[in-house]
């Protein structure tokens, strides 16, 4: 693909623009030029020490297998100008409002299916569709309270939504910890910028969760965070958030359901729970309804949920809004519910389920990225320009036998950012995951989000499971 695609660097713009530093990065660039060469390396090592002590490895300090899960942190921030963020903010808000309207419709009247916009089988044959939710009201009609929307940038003007994560998106603890560590390591750099804070995220999240308590909750609603437990790879984030929110971190066995009301077992007896910020999948929530072998869930939880006595955040069954096949309909979904044009576009997507799209994809495999509809984490995909002939042939066979399982997209030149590498600063591809909160009183988004960076030279895969790292994300204030 090299040579054909023009890389856009967020600091220096496109190569043909002459490499002049863009205004948001001007101070950073001056600062980088002024610091002693070994300072960055020193700070990088300091960051790692601090992370090991107070940060992400805290819960697993000293555990050899777990240490491998340490996600590398890059000390060069990714910077967005105020007007860039305003565009993103509006687009994210619009998108999440539409997703909530869509979920309410699918589990309700299904106007969008009847209007012939989203094909029926895409929903009802989707393994993440939950028939248990048909016709069930959820508190305040909200399904997705916490969304992580993955955004990529390809040029100065164009941001694309790459993926919607509306089940149990993770990563927000990195957003918060990254900022903390940057404030510690580079006070001098912060004094040159006015950067919108992110530290209020836990407060915004708690307000959001309390706002969606069911009307039957009395007084100040009790919110808990439900984790699968210490063995879960995101346990650190769960305990971190529970701590910041000042709520109990519960496991399934800490909860019990009596007369369709959820209680937690405390040293002072049973205490009613009104809102559950759950970080376990639908399948494991309630062994009486979903997987009966689940020891992580709470028997009777769904019955309490249906009785309207507890709020689950996010709601059950939101998976039908974030698979890759539904994704391709998102512009139509936004238009259908809001009568608006999408502010943030999708990456152009070919749905292999449609004959003419399939033909195009078959003819252009070498240029396209082909993705499995239910795949995630960067697995189950083919990057045409980088693929061997043999794997292209394999995917061609897969496509032929089950076209509905695949979508295809052009190979995007994700924007790059300067990043510390073994050989000094170099450009690496980045994406952005902002976290969008939806409560009874509207949508809140803390400015920025989690920037993920592909640390390998030329790599486009930013997922932490495949060697991605993270950066602090700065949204400049006005």
């Amino acid at each position, binding site marked *: 693909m090299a040579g054909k695609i023009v890389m856009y660097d967020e600091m220096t713009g496109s190569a043909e623009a002459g490499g002049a530093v863009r205004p948001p990065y001007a101070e950073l660039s001056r600062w980088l030029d002024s610091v002693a060469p070994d300072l960055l390396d020193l700070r990088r090592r300091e960051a790692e020490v601090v992370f090991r002590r107070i940060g992400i490895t*805290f*819960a697993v*300090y*000293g555990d050899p297998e777990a240490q491998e899960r340490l996600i590398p942190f890059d000390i060069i921030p990714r910077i967005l100008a105020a007007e860039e963020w305003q565009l993103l903010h509006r687009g994210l808000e619009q998108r999440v409002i539409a997703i909530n309207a869509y979920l309410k419709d699918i589990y309700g009247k299904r106007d969008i299916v009847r209007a012939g916009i989203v094909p029926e089988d895409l929903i009802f044959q989707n393994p993440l569709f939950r028939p248990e939710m048909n016709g069930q009201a959820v508190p305040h009609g909200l399904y997705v309270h916490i969304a992580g929307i993955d955004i990529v940038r390809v040029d100065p003007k164009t941001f694309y939504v790459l993926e919607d994560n509306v089940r149990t998106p993770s990563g927000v603890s990195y957003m918060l910890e990254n900022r903390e560590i940057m404030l510690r390591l580079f006070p001098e750099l912060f004094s040159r910028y006015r950067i919108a804070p992110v530290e209020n995220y836990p407060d915004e999240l708690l307000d959001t969760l309390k706002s969606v308590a069911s009307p039957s909750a009395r007084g100040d609603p009790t919110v808990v965070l439900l984790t699968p437990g*210490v063995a879960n790879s995101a346990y650190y984030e769960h*305990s971190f958030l*529970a*701590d910041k929110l000042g709520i*109990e*971190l*519960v*496991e399934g*066995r*800490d909860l019990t359901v009596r007369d369709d009301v959820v209680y*937690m*077992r*405390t*040293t*002072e007896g049973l205490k009613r729970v009104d809102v559950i910020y759950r970080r376990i999948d639908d399948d494991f929530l309630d062994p009486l309804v979903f997987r009966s072998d689940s020891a992580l869930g709470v028997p009777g939880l769904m019955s309490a949920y249906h009785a309207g006595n507890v709020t689950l955040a996010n709601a059950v069954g939101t998976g039908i809004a974030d698979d890759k096949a539904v994704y391709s309909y998102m512009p139509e979904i936004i238009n259908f519910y809001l009568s608006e044009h999408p502010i943030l576009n999708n990456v152009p997507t070919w749905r292999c389920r449609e004959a003419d799209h399939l033909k195009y994809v078959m003819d252009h495999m070498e240029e396209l990225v082909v993705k499995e509809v239910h795949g995630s984490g960067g697995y189950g995909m083919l990057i045409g320009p980088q693929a061997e002939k043999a794997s292209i042939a394999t995917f061609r066979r897969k496509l032929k036998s089950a076209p509905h399982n695949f979508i295809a997209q052009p190979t995007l030149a994700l924007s790059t950012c300067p990043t510390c590498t073994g050989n000094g600063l170099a450009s690496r591809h980045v994406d952005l995951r902002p976290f969008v909160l939806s409560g009874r009183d509207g949508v809140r988004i803390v400015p920025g989000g989690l920037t993920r960076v592909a640390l390998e030279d030329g790599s486009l895969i930013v997922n932490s499971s495949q060697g991605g790292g993270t950066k602090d994300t700065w949204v400049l204030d006005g």
Partner: protein
Amino acid sequence: MLSRTADNLYWLARYVERAEYLARILDTTLRLNTLPLSSGGASNEWESAVASAGCVNAFFGAYDDANEGTVTDFLAFSTKNPSSIRNCFEIARLNARAVRTALTTEMWDTINGIWLELRNWSKGASSREELARFLRWVMGSSLRYDGSAYRTMLRNDAYCFSRIGVYLERADNTARILDVKYHLLLPPAATVGGPLDYFQWASILRSVSALTSYHWVYRQNVKPWLVAELLMLKDEMPRSMASCYENLVENLDHIGNAYGRQGPAQRQARAVRARLMNSRIEEIFQSGLHEFIGTFIEDNNRLSSAVAAQYLM
């Protein structure tokens, strides 16, 4: 607070306390074994160590013979003995990890540090000297942990549950050592040993770090009935049964007041405390030392069940 959190804090404290007690038993047994038989160095000391640790059945399920090698391995390093010192620290850290956010940074650093240092002993101890060093490290670790909790924890219900774990375990340990050695403490008329039991008495005191305290309290030679009195009835002796129950009552009352509700655990603790306060050592000897201690161990178990039922489940 969540019952599970309280449960984790309680067991964390109990297991650290138990590790220290096991180290003390091994330490005093090693010492007794250096004495010639004529000075009270009994040949079955290692069996008695196993009995004091409360794991006779488990031990003889794994070994035929109780000697220095088998007993130190079982009580200190074995991965198969669920209550070996190694496993006590392993379980303590698992409990700590499960309630990471309920601990202070200092407590976590300490217990995690102990767990990391434990790896230095993954092969056990190859010599007496190394074993002695290990036991000193265990006792020091327990002190470090206890200090980190005492100096940094908020004085709230979490702290009380952690202390209750310490004192229930400690009361059980002290009673157990008395239960195994009670015959040595009986008055001379009924004694099974002779004057040479002196070293045995001293070793009992040493195993609960009370030898010096004994001299400060009584200012006389070690006498068996005074040893019994010190370890059972003296409030000022921190490992005595009386002192443990003074603390248990205090911590349970604190919780009861904070929650605005008393329960079976408070009543049970007060009943035991009252009996210890109203007993005199002479009467205990008259009505039967062994029976008194046996009843105490049962009562202590009953209190741990009551605490569990009332708060931890």
